[in-house]
């Protein structure tokens, strides 16, 4: 006796579209508000995944930006405290202009130490040959 197997295409299409909407929404919410800075160039780049990433932008004048907003060190510390309260394993990506003076970077590193944030990345770009 031959069995007829029917594949419910309609429900499959429903599920496919729901997954698609879900993935699109994830893509949209993952966007970081980027501040234009000229990143320093290095020869060998290591690729670092953006899992649990928080981005700090530092301009060459030493202005700090976090979440698209300009803030001072005290405000940045409060914001980072809120983020680490939710997730202790946050990775801080420091996007600093190559002309930024070290004193501003030093303040950020001290802040990370105070917040017990051990993972940080100095974001760079590949050197153009």
């Amino acid at each position, binding site marked *: 006796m031959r069995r007829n197997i029917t594949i419910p295409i309609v429900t499959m299409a429903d599920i*496919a579209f729901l997954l698609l909407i879900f993935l699109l929404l994830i893509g949209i919410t993952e966007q970081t508000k980027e501040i234009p800075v000229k990143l320093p160039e290095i020869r060998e780049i290591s690729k670092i995944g953006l899992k649990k990433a928080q981005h700090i932008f530092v301009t060459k004048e030493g202005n700090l930006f976090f979440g698209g907003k300009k803030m001072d060190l005290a405000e940045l510390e409060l914001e980072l405290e809120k983020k680490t309260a939710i997730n202790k394993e946050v990775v801080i990506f420091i996007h600093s202009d190559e002309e930024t003076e070290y004193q501003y970077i030093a303040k950020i590193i001290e802040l990370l130490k105070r917040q017990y944030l051990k993972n940080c990345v100095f974001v760079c770009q590949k050197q153009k040959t």
Partner: protein
Amino acid sequence: MMKRLKKLRNRKTINFSLPSMSDISFLLIIFFIINISFIYKQGIKLTVPKKGAPPIVVPLKEIIILTLDKSGNLFLEGKKIKIEDLRLYSAKKAAVIKINKFCKYRNLVSVIEELKKNKIDRISLKQI
């Protein structure tokens, strides 16, 4: 009655191909899944020591002490050296970089990159 039947016969039927639509949607899903997994940033990964953590003791002979001045010149024990010369010290286990607070960030990144390339992963930064 006849008019109604005629209307029904003239009615255009639109054929909707559901299997091909679900094919396209699955292809789009695969595309987005692959794209999301490829999102990354490029840079140098560092581990900042915890506040109050006990210092790691390294014998002095295994430490290289570098100084970066305001102009980005690199000095080792008072002598000016090139960044490429750091490869001669790849046997060292740790590095201390004393950086002038006005030194540009790109100079620090170049030195850290060169140290990491020569397997010196323990780097201490001190502002002067």
